[in-house]
C-alpha cells in the first residue's frame, strides 16, 4: 500500500509541481528587476485559463501539429516518473537508463520541431531549424556528462547513479563537479534558458522555443507550456539528484521520505535561484556563439570522464 502511494507520488510530483518552479524563477527575476512580479502560482492560473479557451488551428496544419502536444507532454510524464526525485527505490524501472532518457527527449524535440514546420509560418520554420541545430550539438555534452556519472557508479541506471554518488568521498567529487558544469550547460540549452534562448521573448531574431509554438493556442498550448515546465523541473531534478544526491531516501521509510522531500525542495530552490540570477545577470548569446559553449560542455565532460577512469 505504502509502495503504491509513493509510486503515485513519484509519477505525479513532476507534472504537479513543475508550474510552481516556473513561477518561482519568474518571481525571483521580478525581484531582481525591482518589480513585484506575479504570484508564484501564476503558471497554474495560466494553464487553467488556456485549458478553458477555444482553439484556433491553422488551415495548413496536418495531424502532426495536432498530435505533437500529446506526445511531447506524455514524454515528459514518462521521464518524470523514471528519474530519482526523492527516493531511489524504483531501480527496476526499465526506463531509467540515461541513454533512453536522452533519446526520449530527442523524440519530443523531433516532434516539436516538426510541429513548428507544419503550419508553414516563417517563424516556426526558423525556430525548428535553430532548435534542431542546438539539440544536435547538445546531445554530446548531455550524454557524456551523464556517462561520467555512469562510470563512477558502474551503472547507467539513474537511480543507481544517485545511490552511488551519494556515498563517494569528497576527493573523488572533483570530476563530478566538472561533469555537473557540463550538464548545466546542456540543461540550459535543453530547457531553452539563457544564454541559449529567452523564454520570455517573442522577438523573431532571437526566439527559438517560442517560435516553434507560435501557432498553438488553447488546450494544445497549455499542454506544450506544461510540458516545457515539466522538462525544466526534470532537468533541475537530474542536476540536483544525480550530481548532489545527498539526503535522498533509499529505504522507503516515512520519515526519511519526508526529509528527502524537504531536501529535494531545497536543492531545487537553490538551482532555481541560480537560473534566475543567471538570467538576470547575463545577456543572451549570439546564436553562432552557442556551439562554442556546447563544445565546452562536451570537453568538460570528457575531462571528467578521463579523471574518473
Amino acid at each position, binding site marked *: 500500500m505504502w509502495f503504491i502511494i509513493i509510486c503515485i507520488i513519484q509519477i505525479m510530483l513532476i507534472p504537479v509541481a513543475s508550474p510552481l518552479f516556473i513561477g518561482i524563477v519568474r518571481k525571483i527575476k521580478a525581484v531582481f528587476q525591482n518589480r513585484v512580479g506575479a504570484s508564484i502560482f501564476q503558471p497554474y492560473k495560466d494553464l487553467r485559463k488556456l485549458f478553458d479557451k477555444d482553439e*484556433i488551428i491553422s488551415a495548413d496544419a496536418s495531424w502532426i501539429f495536432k498530435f505533437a502536444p500529446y506526445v511531447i507532454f506524455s514524454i515528459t510524464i514518462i521521464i518524470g516518473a523514471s528519474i530519482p526525485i526523492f527516493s531511489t527505490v524504483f531501480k527496476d524501472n526499465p526506463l531509467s537508463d540515461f541513454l533512453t532518457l536522452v533519446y526520449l527527449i530527442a523524440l519530443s524535440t523531433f516532434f516539436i520541431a516538426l510541429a513548428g514546420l507544419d503550419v508553414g509560418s516563417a517563424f516556426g520554420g526558423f525556430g525548428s531549424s535553430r532548435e*534542431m541545430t542546438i539539440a544536435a550539438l547538445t546531445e554530446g555534452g548531455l550524454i*557524456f556528462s551523464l556517462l561520467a556519472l555512469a562510470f563512477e557508479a558502474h551503472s547507467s541506471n539513474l537511480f543507481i547513479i544517485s545511490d552511488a554518488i551519494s556515498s563517494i568521498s569528497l576527493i573523488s567529487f572533483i570530476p563530478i563537479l566538472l561533469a555537473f558544469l557540463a550538464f548545466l550547460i546542456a540543461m540550459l540549452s535543453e530547457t531553452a534558458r539563457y544564454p541559449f534562448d529567452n523564454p520570455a521573448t517573442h522577438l523573431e531574431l532571437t526566439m527559438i522555443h517560442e517560435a516553434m509554438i507560435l501557432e498553438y493556442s488553447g488546450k494544445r498550448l497549455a*499542454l506544450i507550456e506544461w510540458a516545457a515546465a515539466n522538462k525544466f523541473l526534470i532537468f533541475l531534478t537530474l542536476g540536483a539528484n544525480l550530481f548532489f544526491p545527498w539526503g535522498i531516501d533509499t529505504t522507503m521509510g516515512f520519515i526519511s521520505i519526508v526529509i528527502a522531500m524537504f531536501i529535494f525542495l531545497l536543492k531545487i530552490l537553490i538551482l532555481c535561484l541560480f537560473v534566475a540570477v543567471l538570467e538576470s545577470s547575463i545577456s543572451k548569446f549570439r546564436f553562432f556563439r552557442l556551439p562554442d559553449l556546447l563544445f565546452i560542455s562536451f570537453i568538460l565532460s570528457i575531462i571528467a570522464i578521463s579523471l574518473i577512469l
Partner: protein
Amino acid sequence: MFYANISLNCFFISLLLFAVGAFGSLTFNRNDRLSNLFGNSLAIIASIFGIISSLSVLIFDSAFSYSINSSLPLLSLSFNIDRLSAFFIFIVSLIALVSSVYGIGYAKHYYKQYSLGALGFFYNIFILGMMLVVSSSNAMFFLIVWETMSLTSYFLVVFENREKNNIKAGSLYFIMTHIGTAFIMLAFFLLYQYTGSFDFGIIKNNIGNLPLFAKDAIFFLALIGFGTKAGIIPFHIWLPKAHPAAPSHVSALMSGVMIKTGIYMMIRIFMDIMPDAPIWWGVVVLIIGCVSSVLGVLYALTEHDIKKLLAYHSIENIGIILLGFGASLIFWSLDMKPLAITALIAALFHTLNHAVFKALLFLGAGSVISQTHTRNIENYGGLIKYMPQTAFFFLIGAMAISALPPFNGFFSEWMTFQSLFTGIRTLNTGVQWVFIFAAGSLALTGGLAAACFVKAFGATFLARPRSKEAKHAKESGISLRIGMATLAILCLIIGVFSGFIVKIILDVVHGLSIFNISNIPFSSNLCSFRFTDDFAFISVPFIFISLVLIVTLTFFAIHLLTKNRKVTIGRTWDCGSDLNGRMEITATGFSKSIIRIFQGILRPTKQNLIEYHGSGYFQKTNTVKMGIKDVYHTFFYYPIQEFFLKISGYIKKIQSGNTNVYVLYIFLILVALLLLIVI
C-alpha cells in the same frame, strides 16, 4: 539433415526463379505490362524461397555447403551457407521481396518510355548476384558474381538513359566499382600466393603461411576494395551520384542491401578467414567509421535532392556499422571475446535495421517522386495532405533512422553506444581515447541525423506546396503502399522485439569459429536486454507500451476535460501579408545554420550572378548559387589527379608525333630485347 535439405533446395529454387524471372521478362519485352508483372512476380516468389531458406538456416542451424566442379582450373562453383551468409541472404531476400512488390506499381511510369524487359532482366540478375556474393566460398567464383552484381547495378543506374546526369553518374560508378574490384582481386591473389587456393575454406586452414606484411597488405586491399562498395569516406564519391539515378526500388536495394555486401566480406575476411587481427586494424576501422558517420550526415544536411540526401545517410549508417565492427575487432584482438561478440551483434543488428529503414525511405522518396517528377526537396511541401499514407510511412522511416524509440534504429544505436562505452571503461589509455572519440562522433551523428530528417520530412511533407506538381500530387498506388507499409511495420516490430532478434544474431555470431564461446556479457529475452555486469538495462517493449499508454491516456483525459471548447480553423499568422508557399522555410534555409557552424569542414560556397540592364546600375536578374566544396575532392582526389597529370606531362615529352622518332623507339626496343635474349 531434413532442414539442411529444405534450405539447400529452397536456395537453389530461389536462384533458379530469379534467373527465370530475368530471362522471362526479357522474352516478354514487347509487352510492357506482362514483362513488368512477370519479372517482379518471379522476383517475389524467389525472394520468398530465399527467406525460407535463410530462416531455416538461422533457426534450425541447418548450415550447408554445396560445390559444383567446373572444367576450368581454379574455378569451382562452391557455396557455403553458414549462419552469417544466411543472415545476409535473409536481408537480401527481405528487401528484394518488398522492392519487387513495390516495383510492380512503380515501374508503371516507365511504360512506353523505357524497356521494361531490360529492367526486369537486370533487376533479377542483380538480386541473384547479391545472393551469390554472400554465399560463394570460392574467390574466383566470388569475383565473377561480384562483377555480375556490379555490372547489373551499373545498368540499372543508367536505366533512365535519357537523362545525361544518369549516364555520368553511371560512368563514375562503373569506374569506382572497378577500382574497388581491382583491390579485391589483388587481395585474393595475395591470399592465393601464400595459401595456394582460391577456396575460402582452404585459405582459412592455410592462413598460418601468411607472413605479417602480406596480412597487413591484404587488410588494406580488402578494406579499400570492399570499403568502396560499402561507401566509406573517401571512397564513397560514386554512392551519392549512382544511388539516386537508379529507379527508386533499385535504389532501395542498392542502399539497403548492396553496400552491405562490402560489410559482409569485411566480416568474412577479417573475422572468419584471417585470425589474429592486430589491434590497429580495429583502430583504423573505428576511425573510418567515425569519419564516415560524421561526414556522411553533414553532407546529407547540405543536400536538397531527396535521394542524394538518403544516399549520404547510407554512408553515415555504414559508418555506424563500422563503429560496431571496429570496436569488435579491437576487443577481439585484445582477447576480450565476450565484448567483441556484443559489438559485432550491434554492427549486424544495425546492418539489418539500416536495410529496413533505408529501403523504406527510398520507397517513400520514390512514391513522392512518381507524383511530383522531381527529386528537389525545395519543390515539394505540404504533401502530407495529398499523400497521407506515404507521409506516415516516411515519418516512421525518418524516426527509425534518427534512432528514436521505439523503432528499430534506436536499439542498434543504443547497443553500439554501449559497446563503445564498454571500450572506454575497460581498455587502457591509448585505445580508450579512440573509443571516446568514436562515442562522441556517434552522439553528434545521432543529433545531426535527427536534424536532417526533421528537414527532409518537414520540407517534403509539411507546410504548403511550393510547386504546381506538389499541389497536384495524389496518393500512390496500392502496390507502392503495400511495400512501404510492410517495411514500416517491420521497423516497429524489429524495434520492439529487439531482444528476441538479438538472440538470433547471437547465434549468427556464434557461428563464426572464433566466437564459438559460451560466455556472453548480456542476457536477452523478448522483453528486455541486460548486461550481466548491470551496467545497462533496456526494455523496448516497455518503452513502447508506456508511450502508447500515456499518449492515449493524455489524449482522452484532455478530450474529456475540454470537449466543450470550440476549435476554429484559421490562417497561419502572416504579419498582415499574403502568406504563400515561398514564405515558409526551405530545406536550404533549414540547414543553413548547421552548415555555417561546420563551415570549417563543409566549406560552403556562394556565387552571385547579377545581370544588369544596359546602364549597369539596375539589376535585371540576381542568381545566388550556393554549394559546398568537398574536402575529399580537395585533399584526396584532386592531389591524385594532379599527380597523374604531372606524370603524364613527363611521358608526353617522348610523344613527339614524328613517325621517324617512333620507328627509332621500335628499333631501340628491338635491340634491347635482342640483347636481353643474348645475355
